[in-house]
């Protein structure tokens, strides 16, 4: 409930003890007494300035704010005063402080607040002027003059207001022609005033300008007086005239001589020299017309009623052709006629009018018809004649479609002298609009702000051009293979200088010579859509008529792939009832081949695609690796149990039964071995010769770590390495007994090795797409350096992207069981969890005297790293390129 002061009837907050306005006590024992001296009432807690000045009451606070106005303004802006006033219960003053803080001018804001304080210790602002009248004496229209007035604040509050000059010849300020100036001061202020000579008007009476000062401390007027005598006309026969009427009288007496002075502008200049406006508007007429023009302008004689010969002019002309036409303004009275006209289009120019007594001929020229063939150009000509009589003439120019060469070219067929076709009987012109004194926005002002195109000037195109340039630079950078944050030494994900193509997201130089090639059985044999791998430039060391192969059959005829769908087995791409090959597409340029099959099973459709391509090896960068990808899509409406098995009949440089290097195992795999998903190695390698100095062909079977941008391959479920019985076309499930039965020449060792790769046979949901990937191609081992003596070499495989784990395998020749092999890693490369730097040889292959030790390692950043292994006195090192793997949303 608000409390109303019984004395002043003003409303106070409920908690008010006394009236905030007059100090009348509102509650408590002293209610009804007072008034209290609020200004000296002690605050519950003092308000302390940052300077340490302590204010105990409103008087103290007001004086402190006056004397330390800058800190006070800052505290007002920062809300300290607002919160202080709220804390002492003066919500009204706190709100006032909040409003005052919003003032753009902090001094004004502070003054507003001080005005609301219940204190009269600060006297109100009072306007005092140094003088009320200034007499400048005689002024010249050619000399500049400056004066000053002083405004003094007779009070303590802020004096603010404005100074207004009512005369154009008296400007406020040192520069410009301002007639109004705002001011504010707590002390004294000097205001410069400036006489604007060109605005002085000569007169036989003194000029008086009023300088009005309105302020918070009152208003006042300063009178500025000056005299500007009239300069008499100097030339005969009008000499001595002191005003227009005297000029007219003298001209009437000597018309012929006077006409010359009007015609040549002497009279107009005399008017101007005295600061007067010449009454004749527009160009001066000639002869008697000039005198009549002056008389009419002074209102000494009425103008004759004039007419114009036409209000519409129709012209036809070719682009760049010159056209000319005339308008005649006349009168039926025996009076001189003068007239002039201006076109609103820049392509029409006007000539000096010919005055011939009671008519005036206005000539207009179109020097070059604008080069806008086929358009109808329209212009308006405003003609003004005696007594400001106006005519509006519309000019229509039909630009013909035929191009006319410029006049300077000697083209005889051009007709520049052809007179314009003038059509007199044309539609009437638009009437001249009446003057309108309301606010109108000049359309010209809007001209440059209409539409995006016109509103963006050239300078605004600069940032856009910069952006486009940057984009072009990026495109060029990509074209030449420059990247940020990655090496460009070739391999998957990195392009070199030439054009590149992708599949699996890999990129490479397709024109590069491939070391490994694909061949397909469907070309010449049984059309079973199998593939083989061979090195075209190398011959089988045991059969010079054949290429060096990585698969037993160059066209892959001894390989096969089987699909199992709900316990039914199918040979991949083997056409039969309910199985059809729907795509067989080879792109020899990109060394890629795709085969897709539809398996129609119980009315359901399963699509299986085989996609093979020769790509660069992840470390070598050479086109020496084949990626094999199977995509299984359940296009039916029900879930189906689907698995896939690929049998690869390996063949390494004429050898069909070489031992396999399998990282993670103790020695070499020379007989049937099964690997499950849990112990699946990153890769398997086999060397043609078990000689580290000359390993011959190295086959590299990649099993894990494929990071393809467009697919998430399922891990390999099972791997068999075994002996190929040869006489049997294996079914989906290769029997271990079959794979292990045949005994080679070297006892139990392989004589014809095969690899069976299985992907999990599991329920595949409708719409689900499964991806199976492995690679097969040429591998490489580090060349034993001088210190290794041909006894130690290194090979790598797996996912060599940053942050991923790959395998490094040391191959040791002529080692003994228990021999230590250690690895040295550079900064940024770390051993995987559970690995130790030093390992011992567990097994030595008796036949080849070869051993192997493997480590799982990873690198955190991209780059090329040297990894070194050592055993006894021997050491060997290899370089591994680590690349970025990115799949951020924003990449």
């Amino acid at each position, binding site marked *: 409930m608000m409390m109303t002061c019984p004395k002043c009837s003003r409303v106070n907050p409920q908690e008010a003890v006394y009236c905030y306005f007059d100090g009348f006590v509102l509650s408590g024992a002293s209610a009804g007494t007072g008034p209290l001296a609020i200004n000296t009432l002690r605050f519950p807690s003092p308000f302390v300035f940052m300077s340490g000045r302590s204010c105990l009451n409103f008087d103290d606070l007001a004086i402190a704010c006056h004397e330390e106005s800058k800190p006070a303004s800052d505290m007002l802006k920062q809300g300290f005063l607002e919160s202080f006033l709220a804390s002492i219960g003066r919500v009204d003053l706190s709100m006032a402080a909040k409003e005052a803080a919003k003032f753009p001018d902090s001094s004004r804001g502070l003054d507003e607040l001080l005005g609301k304080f219940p204190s009269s210790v600060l006297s109100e602002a009072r306007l005092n002027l140094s003088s009320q009248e200034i007499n400048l004496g005689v002024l010249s229209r050619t000399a500049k003059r400056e004066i000053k007035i002083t405004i003094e604040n007779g009070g303590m509050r802020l004096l603010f207001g404005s100074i207004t000059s009512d005369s154009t010849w008296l400007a406020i300020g040192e520069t410009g022609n301002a007639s109004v100036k705002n001011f504010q001061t707590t002390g004294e202020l000097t205001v410069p005033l400036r006489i604007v000579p060109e605005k002085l008007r000569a007169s036989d009476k003194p000029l008086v300008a009023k300088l009005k000062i309105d302020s918070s401390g009152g208003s006042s007027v300063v009178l500025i007086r000056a005299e500007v005598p009239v300069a008499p006309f100097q030339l005969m026969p009008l000499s001595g005239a002191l005003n227009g009427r005297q000029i007219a009288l003298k001209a009437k007496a000597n018309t012929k001589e006077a006409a010359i002075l009007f015609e040549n502008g002497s009279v107009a200049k005399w008017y101007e020299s005295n600061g007067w406006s010449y009454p004749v508007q527009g160009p001066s007429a000639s002869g008697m017309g000039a005198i009549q023009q002056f008389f009419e302008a002074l209102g000494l004689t009425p103008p004759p009623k004039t007419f114009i010969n036409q209000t519409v002019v129709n012209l036809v002309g070719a682009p760049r052709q010159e056209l000319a036409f005339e308008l005649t303004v006349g009168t039926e009275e025996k009076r001189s006629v003068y007239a002039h006209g201006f076109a609103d289009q820049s392509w029409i120019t006007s000539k000096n009018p010919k005055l011939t007594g009671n008519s005036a001929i206005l000539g207009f020229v179109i020097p070059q018809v604008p080069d806008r063939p086929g358009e109808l150009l329209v212009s308006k000509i405003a003609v003004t004649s005696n007594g400001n009589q106006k005519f509006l003439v519309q000019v229509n120019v039909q630009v013909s479609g035929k191009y006319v060469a410029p006049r300077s070219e000697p083209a005889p067929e051009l007709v520049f002298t052809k007179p314009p076709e003038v059509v007199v009987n044309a539609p009437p012109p638009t009437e001249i609009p009446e003057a309108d004194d309301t606010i109108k*926005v000049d359309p010209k002002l809007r001209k440059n702000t209409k539409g995006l195109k016109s509103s963006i000037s050239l300078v605004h195109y600069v940032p856009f051009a910069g952006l486009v340039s940057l984009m072009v630079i990026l495109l060029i950078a990509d074209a030449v293979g420059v990247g940020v944050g990655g090496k460009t030494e070739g391999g998957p994900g990195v392009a070199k200088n030439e054009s590149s193509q992708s599949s699996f997201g890999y990129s490479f130089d397709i024109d590069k010579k491939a070391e490994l090639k694909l061949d397909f059985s469907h070309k010449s044999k049984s059309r079973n859509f199998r593939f083989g791998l061979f090195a075209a430039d190398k011959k089988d060391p045991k059969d010079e008529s054949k290429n060096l192969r990585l698969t037993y059959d160059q066209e892959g005829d001894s390989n096969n792939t089987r699909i199992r769908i709900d316990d039914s087995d199918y040979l991949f791409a083997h056409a039969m009832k309910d199985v059809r090959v729907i795509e067989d597409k080879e792109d020899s340029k990109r060394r890629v081949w795709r085969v897709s099959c539809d398996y129609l099973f119980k009315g359901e459709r399963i699509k299986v695609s085989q996609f093979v391509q020769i790509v660069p090896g992840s470390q070598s960068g050479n086109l020496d690796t084949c990626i094999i990808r199977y995509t299984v899509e359940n296009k039916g409406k029900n879930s189906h149990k689907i698995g896939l098995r690929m049998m690869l009949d390996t063949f390494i440089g004429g050898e069909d039964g070489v031992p396999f290097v399998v990282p993670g195992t103790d020695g070499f795999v020379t007989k049937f071995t099964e690997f499950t998903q849990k112990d699946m190695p990153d890769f398997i390698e086999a060397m043609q010769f078990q000689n580290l100095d000359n390993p011959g062909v190295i086959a590299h079977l990649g099993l894990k770590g494929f990071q393809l941008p467009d697919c998430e391959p399922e891990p390999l479920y099972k791997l068999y390495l075994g002996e190929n019985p040869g006489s049997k076309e294996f079914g989906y499930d290769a029997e271990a007994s079959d794979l292990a039965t045949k005994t080679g020449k070297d006892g139990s060792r392989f004589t014809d090795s095969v690899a069976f790769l299985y992907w999990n046979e599991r329920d595949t949901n409708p719409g689900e797409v499964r991806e199976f990937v492995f690679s097969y191609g040429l591998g490489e081992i580090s060349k034993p350096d001088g210190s290794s003596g041909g006894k130690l070499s290194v090979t790598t495989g797996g996912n060599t992207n940053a942050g991923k784990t790959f395998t490094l395998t040391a191959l040791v020749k002529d080692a003994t069981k228990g021999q230590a092999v250690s690895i040295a890693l550079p900064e940024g490369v770390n051993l995987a969890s559970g690995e130790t730097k030093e390992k011992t040889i567990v097994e030595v292959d008796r036949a080849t005297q070869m051993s192997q030790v493997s480590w799982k390692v990873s690198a955190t950043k991209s780059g090329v790293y040297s990894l070194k292994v050592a055993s006894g006195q021997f050491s060997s090192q290899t370089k591994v390129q680590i690349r970025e793997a*990115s799949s951020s949303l924003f990449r």
Partner: protein
Amino acid sequence: MSFNLFLYYCAIFGAYAALTAAFISRLATQGVTNELLQSVIDGALVGALISFAVGILDTVWSTGKSDIKRLVIRSLGAGFVGLFGGILGGVTGSFIVRITGVQFFVLIGWTISGLLIGLSLGLFDLVFALATKSPAPHDNKIKNGLMGGALGGFLGGAFFLFFKLSLGAIFGRENLLSASGLGFVALGAAVGFFIGLAQVVLKEAWVRVEAGKRIGKELILSKPETFFGRAETCDIGLFGDNSIEKIHAKLLMQKNRYLIADAGSVSGTFLNDQKVTKPTELKAGDLIRLGSYILKFNEKPGKKK
């Protein structure tokens, strides 16, 4: 600055900011293999820089003054909000793509990022107003920013995907500088443009300088009080005319009504040639004259009263 120019610069500022984010992110995430962390860094940079850049432009445009302190605070505040928006969008989008395996769903992430970047300007104004206990901004600013940002994020994301796939096919590899650069530029330009477009298209009332030194400048009315005068702190600075006071007039927004009031000027404020002596309601097309300046008040047709 006209609306057209404002839109143009919204797109340009957004594009440059996004491009800068792309480059910084590339450098900052070198060696970072954690996809989530990459998305966080990318999203944070994109969100913060676009919001910051558009915040600068919006501040300069909407207040028309060179109050550096306010400019910096507002832009940094917007950038801060945008930073979280970018992170949220980036992480969400990455997560959805990872779960579904459908690349198209990156658009969800982009849309969320754009939406929160669009929100950043209005949200900062709201937070600032609450913190300083000053009048809250019109809620249209937040709504328009949300709509514009979401649309810009979606279309920018679509452009991004287009560039990524098409340039990837042309160059035959992933992670291209140009695809990333063009994609980011498209995203930034789209987000910036649509945030600006939403402000412009969905504006309810605005004034345009029809005559005077700053001819063509337009200002959307989104504050309870809009000040005109020659003080630099005014929302529309009317410079070069000494007959105009530092605070000459103010335009008040009260319950969907707009009123013009003179702020005690000497030369006066005129509405359609009539001197304004008390707060007077404006209607579309009204001309306000202050000294040599003429401002035209415009209002969206059919606006609720």
